[in-house]
């Protein structure tokens, strides 16, 4: 009991020489209040506001940037999909064009082949017609020639109708001439 009282008395005693850690100095309270309030005011004005503003600004900037990046990524994805689609479509188109070209070429080939065939046929026909005509012509020529020769021979025979001997000689001669031609 006495001990506890001692401790309490000690704690609240104000010995002049050493002093106690529990002594409260009113001057310190006043200075602390003034100092702290001034510090609070100055730091609020000059430090906390700009620092916190720049912090939130940067946070917003990062957030915006991330959102933008995400959006750009999505856009790019959409674009990529579209491109892929377009590419596929273009390929299909190209395939179609090639197919069409091939068909066209095939048709053309067939047509040309047909045409050339008919042409050839026609040419052959023309040629054979020409041969026939030439033959005919030649035959006709031959005929007239033979006729002329025959007429000529007949004329000579008539002219030299004096003797039998010369007659047969002449005939032989003309036949020889004929075969020579």
């Amino acid at each position, binding site marked *: 009991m006495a001990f506890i009282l001692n401790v309490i008395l*000690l704690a609240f005693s104000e010995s002049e020489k050493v002093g106690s850690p529990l002594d409260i100095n009113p*001057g310190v309270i006043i200075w602390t209040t003034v100092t702290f309030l001034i510090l609070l005011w100055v730091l609020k004005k000059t430090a906390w506001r700009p620092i916190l503003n720049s912090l939130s600004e940067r946070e917003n900037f990062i957030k915006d940037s991330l959102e933008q990046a995400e959006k750009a990524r999505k856009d790019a994805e959409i674009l990529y999909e579209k491109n892929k689609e377009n590419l596929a479509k273009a390929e299909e188109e190209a395939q179609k064009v090639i197919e069409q070209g091939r068909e066209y070429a095939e048709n053309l080939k067939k047509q040309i082949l047909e045409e050339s065939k008919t042409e050839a046929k026609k040419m052959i026909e023309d040629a054979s017609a020409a041969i026939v005509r030439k033959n005919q012509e030649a035959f006709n020529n031959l005929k007239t020639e033979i006729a002329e020769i025959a007429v000529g021979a007949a004329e000579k025979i008539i002219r030299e109708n004096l003797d039998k001997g010369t007659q047969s000689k002449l005939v032989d001669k003309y036949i020889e001439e004929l075969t020579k031609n």
Partner: protein
Amino acid sequence: MVLEIVQTATDSLKNASENGGGSGWIMHHVLDSRKLDFSPFGVIALPHIEVFGIDISITKHIVFMWFAVLILLAIFFYVAKEHKKSRIPSGLSNLMEILVVFVRDDIAKSTIGKGYERFLSYLLTIFFFILTCNLIGLIPYGSTPTSNIAVTATLATLSFLVIQGGGMIKYGVFGYFKGLMPHGIPIWLLPIMFVVEILGLFTKPFALAIRLFANMTAGHVVIFALIGLIFILKTYFVAPVSVAFALFIFLLEILVALIQAYIFTVLSGIFIGMAVHQEH
């Protein structure tokens, strides 16, 4: 019986003041004083000021408090300038930014919740002020302003005013006191509960003040006591042990300086949160 007790008490008091020399050298370092002791380089006497009969002399703790304020101002002027200059922090401003963000997110936002912005400046200032005051006592010839109970009591009182002010601005004076009462208690309990709650309002800052003061004083006392072992035992053989233990306590004090600044701020934040969000 009573007389006896009083006699012992006065005896021990006298004893204490006479034999003050025994622990006086420890107290000399821990307590506030009217002069800056830079022995062996000299002693600077501080001016004695008295206004309207109140002694407002500059003391050692006040000088070191101002020193802490100057350090804080220098650091944060620089950091604010850096922040205005570029968006990418570096070096010192990066370090300070970590602490500022810590106070903002892990203390203010998590303890107060909605509407924390209004109290952010106060919490930031008190955190950095206490932290710097705590650490300044660890440099040679330094002295810890927060080991003065007048300083911690003042800070706790300011916290008390901020807590009550915040609650009263939010709910009005009457609404705030009404909100202090738990819901659904019997009418006849109300007077008791009222007294208990009002007491509770005062015990919180009281605990804040005592906690900070005791933590900051105790570490120094222990360090001095450990070093003092060398002189009490009058042998050098104990020196390595003393120094090793003192160093350990010193490192612990760095941790305690950080922890106490954090605790003071976080408890202020929690009490503000309780006052501002009474529905919880």
